[in-house]
């Protein structure tokens, strides 16, 4: 067992005026590095547990990590729990997929997106020890062996993409209110009793192993804090803090938290244990302002100084930026800039159907204004009852230009969940998971990011199929697209089920499951179907391009008879080559209306196809008995998925990006301003996008200037609410600022921008994504 002491320059004896500033700077001092520590510990444990059931082996490996991982308390920290000693390290989980890192082992330090240092010694260790051990027995191997020829063909057709085949499933919100109300001790007692009553239930045994390890992990921090507190070279204030941390961490091994400080400590430790177990994206935080408020009030009443509360919450914010996710180059293209997914939903509805906002909701936005880092990714739930004061604060925060918070519309999300059999109380309690997906916190295993479904690619294939059909009609084309959607929906659900099964067989998560209703009652892991709600979410991608393309074909070929269908397909296959090709392309871009300009005929075409897709998907049940839900978002996948699609009738060149976000108009094609954009988006029945949708709207700072700007922005958001659009996020940056940042990244290290569904550092993004952000229509007036 190793520990690291915090080091502090001897001259610094007074408590720094801004602890948060010190901690923030420490976070970014060193380059990001890959740490093999977890992989080594996990493997060491696995070697000792051969022959035991997977869920037990997993639990023991997680426990082993918690008992042996190097721990640290960094300077000024008030909360314990660092996943790695070195901040922002990338963690490998070769038990899921040992192969992808091999393909990138020499490029990961220099790849265009999200580089990590990988030391020579570690690379060698990986090649010689970890790779050989896990080859042939990882989850990836299992999934690859199960993939059917049909699914493989659909992947090769570039229509579907299965996600989470190389890492934990993630996209879960644990029942934080429950563990905060009960404390770790209660879980240990409950699981002990359950295990005694059901000795052959491996889930209970496994869960108990991890919870007991969590207790020991708390105590390791208590001991470390105690040891550090004894260091006489530390200033007195720090030694007092460390002594208090030691006592608190020891207390939390069993007791339930009494104060806001203790609640945040337990919340963070729970989250970190979940990370050790899953190594996954998006173990999101849920409705923090709601479940922490009783603790916040208790601390206030007990006379805890407000600035201490502020610092502890600030420390919590910074810790969420410490955890970054190591993704493959392909995945990093889709999810650029470390969207780890510590997403928080503020406001919303309480169980009485009233708007739920409190002092903590406001404080959390205030604190964001001070810290301004990409995580936690704050969102605000909006509905017709939102009080103006809170809405104004939301608008002021958005005006900072970092894209935080994003907005989720209760008027859409709640009915969406009701339509999927979720109870009214649960639906009102929804929160945001991942980037823009919604879930019922503490009750759902939703596989919210299981697959991508390229609708634009389907249209392209449909057009190829009909190229030689002499008397092809528009209705025939449309019908053929719908038929193909049906075929591929069937396949994507089958493919998703294979991945689902892979996680069941290889990656049960007993700790996390114990914090999802009703796994403890059912005695089942979430991967085995123990959760109350069991969705799978498949993202339909390219709706805006599909709508623009269909409309252009309809007018050009079938109404104006300007050219034959075949001739058009040939032009597309040639990617508009030659002068005539370019002329046609310009004609297609400029002379046919586009989605985003409030053209009902065109928008409804988009709406009908999306509805067809969503309803078709909803017909399928996954292996846990839950429904498949449609999403309409790309995060940043519109760039790689665009690479998969040839030239399209909307005038888009082959391999160019698709429309960003999901429901945003194609870049540069909307020209009537943001009200028209919202109107177009509202034509699509957003309620059907139960899994999530994404709309980017870019404003120039001028639009939001002054009190008047805020008032009109708030009014605009109320209209958004009434238009029943599910999600919106804003990028408030002048073009000039961004171009300058691209040219002089050194001056803009702290510039946070909204990529899609999350915010990242602009300078952390590759040039193509930067260009994309710069190009997006800026609504100036």
């Amino acid at each position, binding site marked *: 067992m190793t520990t690291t002491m915090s080091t502090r320059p001897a001259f610094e004896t007074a408590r720094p005026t801004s602890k948060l500033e010190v901690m923030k700077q420490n976070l970014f001092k060193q380059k990001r590095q890959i740490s093999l520590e977890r992989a080594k510990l996990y493997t060491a444990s696995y070697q000792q547990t051969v022959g035991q059931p997977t869920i037990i082996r997993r639990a023991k490996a997680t426990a082993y990590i918690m008992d042996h991982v190097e721990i640290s308390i960094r300077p000024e920290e008030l909360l314990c729990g660092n996943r790695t000693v070195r901040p922002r390290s990338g963690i490998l989980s070769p038990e899921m997929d040992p192969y992808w890192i091999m393909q990138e082992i020499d490029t990961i330090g220099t790849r265009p997106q999200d580089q990590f240092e990988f030391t020579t010694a570690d690379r060698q260790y990986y090649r010689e020890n970890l790779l050989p051990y896990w080859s042939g027995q990882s989850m990836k191997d299992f999934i690859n062996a199960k993939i059917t020829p049909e699914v493989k063909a659909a992947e090769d057709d570039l229509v579907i993409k299965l996600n989470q085949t190389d890492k934990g499933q993630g996209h879960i919100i644990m029942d934080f209110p429950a563990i905060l109300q009960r404390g770790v001790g209660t879980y240990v007692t409950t699981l002990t009793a359950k295990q005694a009553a059901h000795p052959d239930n491996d889930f209970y045994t496994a869960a108990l192993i991890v919870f007991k390890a969590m207790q020991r992990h708390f105590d390791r921090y208590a001991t470390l804090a105690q040891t550090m507190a004894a260091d006489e070279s530390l200033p007195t204030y720090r030694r007092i803090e460390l002594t208090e941390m030691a006592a608190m961490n020891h207390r939390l091994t069993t007791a339930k938290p009494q104060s806001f400080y203790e609640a945040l400590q337990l919340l963070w430790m729970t989250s970190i244990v979940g990370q050790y177990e899953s190594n996954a994206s998006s173990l999101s935080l849920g409705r923090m302002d709601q479940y922490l408020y009783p603790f916040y009030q208790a601390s206030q009443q007990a006379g805890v100084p407000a600035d201490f509360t502020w610092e502890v919450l600030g420390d919590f914010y910074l810790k969420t930026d410490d955890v970054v996710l190591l993704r493959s180059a392909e995945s990093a293209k889709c999810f650029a800039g470390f969207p780890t997914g510590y997403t928080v939903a503020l406001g919303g509805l309480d169980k009485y159907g009233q708007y739920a906002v409190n002092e903590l909701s406001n404080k959390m936005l205030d604190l964001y204004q001070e810290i301004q880092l990409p995580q936690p990714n704050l969102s605000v739930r909006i509905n017709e009852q939102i009080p103006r004061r809170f809405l104004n604060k939301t608008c002021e925060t958005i005006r900072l230009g970092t894209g935080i918070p994003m907005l989720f519309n209760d008027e859409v999300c709640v009915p969406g969940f009701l339509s999927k059999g979720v109870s009214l109380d649960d639906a009102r309690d929804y929160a945001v998971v991942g980037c823009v997906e919604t879930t019922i916190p503490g009750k759902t295993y939703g596989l919210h990011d299981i697959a991508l479904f390229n609708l634009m690619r389907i249209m392209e294939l449909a057009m190829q199929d009909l190229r030689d059909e002499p008397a092809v009609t528009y209705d025939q084309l449309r019908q053929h697209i719908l038929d193909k959607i049906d075929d591929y929906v069937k396949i994507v659900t089958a493919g998703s089920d294979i991945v689902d099964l892979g996680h069941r067989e290889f990656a049960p998560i007993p700790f996390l499951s114990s914090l999802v209703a009703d796994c403890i009652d059912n005695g089942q892991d979430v991967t085995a179907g123990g959760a109350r709600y069991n969705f799978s979410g498949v993202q339909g991608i390219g709706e805006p391009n599909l709508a623009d393309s269909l409309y252009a074909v309809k007018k050009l070929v079938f109404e104006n008879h300007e050219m034959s269908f075949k001739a058009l397909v040939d032009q597309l296959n040639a990617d508009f080559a030659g002068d005539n090709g370019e002329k046609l392309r310009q004609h297609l871009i400029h002379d046919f209306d586009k989605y985003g300009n409030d053209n009902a005929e065109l928008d409804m075409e988009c709406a009908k196809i999306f509805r067809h897709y969503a309803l078709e998907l909803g017909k399928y049940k996954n292996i846990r008995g839950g429904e498949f839900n449609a999403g309409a978002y790309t995060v940043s996948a519109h760039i790689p998925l665009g690479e998969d699609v040839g030239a399209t009738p909307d005038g888009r060149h082959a391999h160019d990006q698709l429309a960003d976000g999901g429901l945003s108009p194609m870049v540069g094609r909307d020209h*009537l301003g943001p*009200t*028209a954009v919202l*109107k177009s988006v509202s034509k699509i029945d957003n309620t059907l996008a139960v899994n999530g949708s994404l709309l980017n709207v870019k404003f120039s700072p001028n639009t939001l200037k002054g009190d008047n700007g805020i008032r*009109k922005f708030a*009014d*605009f958001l109320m*209209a958004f609410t009434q238009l029943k659009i599910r999600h919106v996020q804003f990028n408030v940056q002048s073009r000039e600022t961004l171009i300058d940042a691209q040219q002089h990244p050194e001056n803009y290290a702290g510039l946070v921008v909204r990529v899609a569904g999350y915010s990242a550092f602009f300078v952390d993004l590759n040039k193509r994504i930067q260009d994309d952000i710069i190009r997006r229509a800026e609504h100036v007036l």
Partner: protein
Amino acid sequence: MPADKGLIFNIQRYSIHDGPGIRTIVFFQGCPLRCPWCSNPESQGAVRPMTWTKNGKTETISYWATVDEILDEIEKDEVFYRTSGGGVTLSGGECLVQYDFAATLLREVKALGINTAIETTGAMPLKAIKKVLPYTDYVMFDLKIMNPILAKRVIGDDVGQVKASFEAALATPTAQVTPRVPLIPGYTTKPENLQQIADYVHEVGIHEIHILPFHQYGSQKYEYLKRNYTMKYTPLLTPTEVDNIHQFFTDQKITAIVSGLE
């Protein structure tokens, strides 16, 4: 001129810098004046369809539309007017040139409970504005050159008519009136002119005006119209110049609010 139609050259949504709330602006063709700084030169002259040449293509930029057709466009942003207290603004050109049509349109919009506004220079016989005032919630009234001789010579304006129209607006209790002064270097910003504006504003008992600094947003349009734009090289006012004008009005006990495009 079709009796039941108006000649329109643009309908612009999401206007948030002029008038209450989020607004849609309907631009009316036709203007009796010829301001050298005009940023909508395509609107000048009689009410007749106008063409220009853009990227080598000749386009007709104005079109006849019925009240219902315009209402269809207006209604698209109805939800935004409702949440913001915004509505519809008639602009131009000079919307009062087609005053009968303007009045009908305003009446219909107002009947829907949507806020109505006009932007006008008052450069029409008094009966024109009188026709629309009963249906207008908000009047943005431009005061430009106040010396009658200069006004006639430079922009073809009849100051007497302007004042009569302005005072008619002020006398309408249901209409809120904001005088606006475009700050045009070499024209409206001359000290004598500013003094005349201040004096007049005092005379009619008003203490607040909007000042709109000169901009060059319309210069491209002169090229499309193949017309010479005499103010092409006129520099924008510096912040200090705007401040000085602001200070001038403050000294005259008039609150001047800087507005317009930025």
